[in-house]
Every structure is written in C-alpha cells, then in structure tokens.
C-alpha cells in the first residue's frame, strides 16, 4: 500500500498528465515508425531499405 502511494506521488502526478504523456509517446513513436518503415519517397525507401527488409516491413 505504501508502495502504491509512493508510486502515485512520485511517478505520474496526475492521470491527465499520464495519459497525455503516453499518447504523446504513441504519436511520436508511430510517426517515427511510419517514416522509417512505411513511407515511400524514393530517398527514404533507399536509406531504410536494409533495415526494412531485416525487420520484415513490406518494402517493395
């Protein structure tokens, strides 16, 4: 119980802040992954080519 309290106190201050931070992370993470794994402009495709194949993103 004390552990739970300390977690709430020192960790995520408010639930609004927690949710905002988590969704910020989701958005940024999804944006990065889309750019690296899925975006099709030739330059991005070429640069990310070997990584895409290795991670088994559909590449071309």
């Amino acid at each position, binding site marked *: 119980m004390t552990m739970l309290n300390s977690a709430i106190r020192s960790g995520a201050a408010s639930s609004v802040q927690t949710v905002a931070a*988590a969704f910020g992370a989701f958005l940024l993470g999804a944006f990065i992954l889309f750019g690296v794994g899925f975006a099709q402009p030739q330059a991005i495709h070429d640069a990310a080519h070997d990584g895409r194949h290795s991670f088994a993103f559909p590449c071309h």
Partner: protein
Amino acid sequence: MTLFRRLFVAALVAGVLSGTAASVVQRVTTVPLILEAERYEVVTTSPPVAPTQLTPAAPAHAGHDGAGHAAHPAPVRELGEAVPETAEEAFQRLWLTVATNLLVGIGYALLVAGAMLLVRAPVDARRGLVWGLGGFIAFALAPATGLPPELPGMGGAELEARQIWWLAAAFCATAGLFAVAFARNRLVVAAGVVVAALPHLVGAPHPESAAGAVPPEMAARFAVLSLGTAALFWALLGSACGAMMQRVLGRPDEEA
C-alpha cells in the same frame, strides 16, 4: 511535460540499445542475404546494361560493358544498382541501416514505454522481458505468419495492400494481447482473441502466381534469421524499457 520528457529519455535509451544490438546481429544474419538477393532482383526487372552484347553468342566475348567489371561470359546476374561497389558506398549503406535500426528501436520503445505508463503495472528489467515477448508476437510474429519476411526480388502482392495488412495484423495482435493480459472480463478476453485472429481469417494479400526469382532455400533462411533477429531485438528492447520505466514510474524495487 516533464513526465513526457522522462518517458522520451527512457525510450531513447532502450531504443538506441536494442537498435544497436540489432544492427550488429543483422550485419551477420540478414544483411548478407539481402545483398545476395539483390543480384536476383535486377534480373527480374530489366536487363541493366548492354542488351546488344548478348546477341553474339560467341563463347569468349570480351566486350566492355559500361559497368566494366561485369563482363561475364554467360548472360546471367549482374550486381544490382544498390549493391555497394566501393568502400565508401558500403560504409554509407551501413550507417544508413544503423540509423534506420536506431529509429525503429526508438519508435517501438516509445510505444512500449507509453503502454507501460498507461497500464501502470510494476515493471523492471525482468518483467520488461515479457513486454518484449508481447512486442515480438505483435510486431514480428503476427505479421510474418501472413507476410513472411521478404527478400529483394521476391514476388509479392501490391505494396500498399501488404502494408495495410501488416499494420492490421500488428494492431489486432496488440489489442488481443492487451485484452488477454489485462482485461478482467472474460467477454473482453474472448473479443480480444477474435480481434487478433481477424486479419488471419481474412488472409494476407498474395500474388496470383508466386513468381519470385530468389531461391526458396534462401528465402527460408532469411525468414528464420529475420525472426530470430527480431526476437533478440524485442527481448532487449522490452527488458531495457522495463529497467528504464522502473525509474520513470518512481518505483523502488519492492514486490508489488
């Protein structure tokens, strides 16, 4: 905002760590096969240089191609355009791949760290390993069961359809895993299982005839190596996220 910053730093560390490890392992597993497969890729698209020189069937023609080095007697495979020929090209390709892997690591780590924050279950390096297993199932295994990891030069359905199916498989598997792991209500668990199975029931897009140029043995080896590398990557990523998020959530390591 400071919470987001701490989350970001945690994901950054975990992503860089796992992305670096993946780069090292890929260097000896998947990348050599990709380079090898690109030799087949060129043949399937169009003969790159000098179609005229193929017409005289003289056994020992010493004609000069534009590419200089590629004057093989038999008209077979030429190096693909992208296959590095100089050390400089090879180095550039290497660092671009490393950068890609780091970004993949950071991107996935952001998703995992955000989810850890929302779920609020206690995490540490060992529990993070279970999260990593979940990530591997959702983002590597589930998509790969419909769309096996593909080499350059392999036949495939239209790219956009495959990308959409890949995303659907990953997303549905994620939803299913969360339902199974955290839902209290059995109906929700059951719904999660159904959702996870849905893309596989619909089926991944495949071409009408499988007419790839890559030898099947090579494709099989690549599929296994790609999944194996992904497993290592995810184990490290999950574990590192767990360790880093333990600090962010401010939890001293007593039992839960």
